[in-house]
C-alpha cells in the first residue's frame, strides 16, 4: 500500500522547470494583517481561543525574539528577510474541527487528492494515519478511532490545546525553549498549528503516523509546531512530508519539532522534504526553510532516530538534534540532502551526550548538482557526565557537475577521556564511468543516475519506512535527471 508521499503511480513526466506540486488551490482564506508585533501575537492567540498559558508562552517568545538577531553564521546567501511583509496567520475559512470528511471544503480535498493523500477509508488499510496541515491549520486527522482504542493521541496542536491542555502546557517548549534561537522564537510567538502526539506507557503505536504540510497561501509564512511525547516503553514512527506551490516569491517556513522519549521509549521521525526550490537557473522564488528539530532522550535507554530526505527548498537551515540525557540512550541521524539548481542547504545534526554510555550515529549523504551548495554542519558533544559515550559519524558528499559546492563542518567537543568518537568522510564525483557501465548493460541514462544515487544514499534510504523509501528514491532520480549530462 502506498503512503501519503506516494501519489498515483501512473505515468509521470517531469522537466527541469516542472515542479510537480506547484499548483495552488482556490480556497477562501482568513488572514491577519501583515507584519509582526505584540498585537499580532495576541490576535493569533485570540483567534485560536487559546488558554492563558499559551498566550504567555507566545509573549515570552516574542520578547526573546525582540532581543535577538537573525543568525547569519550558516553558509547561506540570501537577501534580508522582511519580517514585517509576512502574514503570520492564514487559515482556510472553514477551519473548525470537522466531524467527518464531508464537512471539509471540496477544494481542499481536491488538493489532497492531487498530493496523493486520499483522506478516506483506504488510508486505514494502508496503515497510515494522516494529519494534513494546510497552510498552517490542521484540516483533518484520519484514523482517530483506531488510535483512540490504543490510547494514542494524534491530533492538531490546536485540538490538543483544547482537549489536553495539561499535556501541552507540560511539554511545549521543554525541548526547544521559546527563546532557543531566532527562528524557534519566531515560531513560538506565531505558530498557528501543527501536530500533537502522545503515546501512553508501553504502547506500540498501531499505525505509522503521518503529517503532510503544504503552504498554499503565497503571502503567508508557515510556522507549524510538532510535539511528540513517547511515554515509558512506548514506540512510535512518525512521517512528515512537505510540498508548496511554485511561486516567484519566497515563502518563509520556520517550524519547530520537539520530541520527548521517556525511559525505554523509541521515536522514529522521518521526513521527505520537497518544498519548491526556486527557479533552477536564476534561483528566484522557493521556500526558505528554517527549522528547529530537537529530540530529548529523557529517560534511560530511550532512543530517538531522525531520518530525512531533503530534496527541496531554495534555502535549508536545519539540524535535527538529540539530547541524550538518559543513561544508555541512543540518538541517530540519517540524512540525504540533495541540492540542485541554485539551492543552498546548510544542514546536519547535534548529538549532545549527557547520560552514561550514550551512543549516537550520524550518517550524512550530501549530493550537490548544478550550481548548488551543500553544507554538512554537525556537532558531537560529550559532556563530563557522559561516561563511556560513543559516536560514529560518516559524512559523504557526491558532486554532480563542476559548478556545485560541498562543504563539511564537523564540530567535536569531547570532555571525557574515555569517549569514543569516530568520524569518516569522503567526497566523490558521480562518475561518467559508472554511468557508462550501467548503460553498457542496457540500463537507460535516467535509471542509471537513479541507481548510482540510490546506491550512494543506500544507508539512509534503508532506514526509511518502506513506502517512503520508494518515493524518496524516485524523488532523487527525478531531481538529478537533468543535472547529469
Amino acid at each position, binding site marked *: 500500500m502506498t503512503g501519503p508521499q506516494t501519489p498515483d503511480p501512473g505515468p509521470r513526466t517531469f522537466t527541469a522547470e516542472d515542479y510537480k506540486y506547484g499548483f495552488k488551490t482556490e480556497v477562501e482564506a482568513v488572514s491577519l494583517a501583515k507584519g509582526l508585533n505584540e498585537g499580532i501575537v495576541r490576535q493569533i492567540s485570540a483567534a485560536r481561543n487559546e488558554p492563558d498559558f499559551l498566550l504567555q508562552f507566545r509573549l515570552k517568545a516574542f520578547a526573546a525574539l525582540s532581543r535577538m538577531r537573525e543568525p547569519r553564521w550558516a553558509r547561506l546567501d540570501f537577501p534580508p528577510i522582511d519580517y514585517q511583509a509576512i502574514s503570520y496567520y492564514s487559515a482556510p475559512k472553514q477551519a473548525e474541527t470537522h466531524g467527518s470528511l464531508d464537512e471539509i471544503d471540496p477544494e481542499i480535498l481536491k488538493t489532497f487528492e492531487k498530493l496523493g493523500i486520499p483522506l478516506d477509508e483506504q488510508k486505514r488499510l494502508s496503515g497510515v494515519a494522516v494529519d494534513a496541515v494546510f497552510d498552517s491549520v490542521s484540516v483533518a486527522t484520519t484514523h482517530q478511532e483506531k488510535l483512540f482504542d490504543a490510547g494514542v493521541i494524534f491530533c492538531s496542536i490546536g485540538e490538543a490545546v483544547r482537549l489536553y491542555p495539561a499535556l501541552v502546557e507540560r511539554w511545549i517548549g521543554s525541548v526547544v525553549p521559546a527563546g532557543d534561537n531566532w527562528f524557534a522564537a519566531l515560531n513560538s510567538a506565531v505558530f498557528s498549528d501543527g501536530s500533537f502526539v502522545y503515546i501512553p506507557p508501553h504502547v506500540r503505536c498501531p499505525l505509522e503516523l503521518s503529517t503532510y504540510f503544504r503552504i498554499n497561501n503565497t503571502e503567508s509564512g508557515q510556522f507549524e509546531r510538532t510535539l511528540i511525547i513517547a511515554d515509558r516503553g512506548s514506540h512510535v514512527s512518525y512521517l512528515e512530508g512537505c510540498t508548496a506551490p511554485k511561486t516567484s516569491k519566497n515563502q518563509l517556513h520556520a517550524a519547530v519539532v520537539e520530541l520527548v522519549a521517556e525511559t525505554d521509549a523509541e521515536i522514529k521521525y522521518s521526513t521527505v522534504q520537497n518544498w519548491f526550490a526556486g527557479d533552477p537557473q536564476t534561483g528566484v522564488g522557493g521556500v526558505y526553510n528554517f527549522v528547529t528539530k530537537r529530540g530529548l532522550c529523557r529517560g534511560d535507554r530511550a532512543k530517538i532516530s531522525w531520518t530525512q530526505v531533503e530534496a527541496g527548498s531554495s534555502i535549508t537551515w536545519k539540524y535535527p538534534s538529540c539530547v541524550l540525557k538518559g543513561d544508555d540512550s541512543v540518538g541517530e541521524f540519517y540524512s540525504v540532502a540533495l541540492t540542485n539548481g541554485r539551492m543552498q542547504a546548510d544542514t546536519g545534526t547535534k548529538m549532545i551526550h549527557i547520560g552514561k554510555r550514550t551512543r549516537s550515529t550520524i550518517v550524512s549523504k550530501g549530493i550537490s548538482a548544478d550550481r548548488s551548495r551543500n553544507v554538512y554542519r554537525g556537532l558531537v558533544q560529550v559532556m563530563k557526565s557522559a561516561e563511556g559515550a560513543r559516536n560514529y559519524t560518516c559524512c559523504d558528499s557526491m558532486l554532480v557537475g563542476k559548478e556545485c559546492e560541498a562543504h563539511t563542518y564537523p564540530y567535536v567537543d569531547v570532555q571525557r577521556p574515555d569517549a569514543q568518537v569516530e568520524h569518516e568522510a569522503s567526497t566523490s564525483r558521480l*562518475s*561518467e*564511468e*559508472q554511468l*557508462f*557501465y*550501467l*548503460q*553498457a*548493460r*542496457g*540500463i*537507460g*541514462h535516467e*535509471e542509471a543516475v537513479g*541507481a*548510482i544515487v*540510490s*546506491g*550512494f*544514499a*543506500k*544507508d539512509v534510504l534503508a532506514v526509511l519506512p518502506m513506502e517512503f523509501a520508494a518515493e524518496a528514491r524516485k524523488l532523487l532520480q527525478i531531481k538529478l535527471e537533468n543535472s547529469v549530462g
Partner: protein
Amino acid sequence: MVIGMTATPDPGPRTSDLLQVTDLKVTVAGLTIVDGLTLSVPAGEVHAIMGPNGSGKSTLSKALAGHPAYAIAGGGAALDGKDLLAMEPDERVHAGLFVGFQYPTEVPGVNNAEFLRMAWNARRKALGQPEATAKEFAPILAERIRQAEAPEDYAGRQLNAGLSGGQKKRNEILQMYVLEPRLAILDETDSGLDIDAIKAVARGINGFRRPDRSIVLITHFQRLLELVKPDRIHVLVKGRIVHSGGPELAERLEAEGYDRFERA
C-alpha cells in the same frame, strides 16, 4: 606482409557476419588508437583478438560499447546489419551486444541482483516483453548463476564494489548470461584469474556458444585459448588487424611474440 606466415586476406563482409567492423578509426583525447580496423565475425564463431599492450584492444571494445570518451573518427560497425555506432550504449545492448570489460566499474551501494534485474528488465522493455518483479527474477538469476558457474553469493554482493579483480570478471560472465547477447566481446576476461577460476570462466564461455551467437575474446595470453578453442585468431598491432589465422596461430604467437608483426 609477414615472412614465414601465410597471410589470410579478409574476405570482406558476408551476409552471415554477425559483426562487421569496417575501416574503423577511434581517437582518445585526440590520439588515434584504432586506425583502420576491419573485422568480420560470422554467427556461431568464436574469434580471438591478440596483440601487444597498447595495440588498441580495449579501445576497440570500449568504442563498440559506446563509451563517450572514445570518439569515432571514421569507418563503421554493424551488428546483425544494424549500425551500432548510431545507437546509445544501452540501445546497443538491446540490439544484442555485450562487452565484458577489462576493469569492470565499481558502483557502491548497488545490489548485484537488483542491478541485474534492472538490466534484464531494460532489455525486456526494449523487446516489448513484460518486466520481472524481484520475486519473479530471483529464480531466473539463480539459474543464470548456475549456468555461468558464478559463486552463489553473487546475488547478494554489491555491484563490483568489494569484489576482487577476478571476482569482477566472473561477475561479467554472469551478466553475459543474464543479458543473453548475440555478440559477446570479452576484454581480457582471463587476466587476474587463478587457474581454477580461468577454468570456470572457460566453461562459462563454452557453455554460452550457440550457432546464432558469436564471441570475441580479447586476450594477451594463450592459456584461455587452450580452454576455449577459437575459430579464428586476429593479430592487432597499432590499431589494425595485421594478420588472421586459425587456432594454431595462438601457439605460434606464444612462442614467437608479436615482434615480427610490430616490425612489419
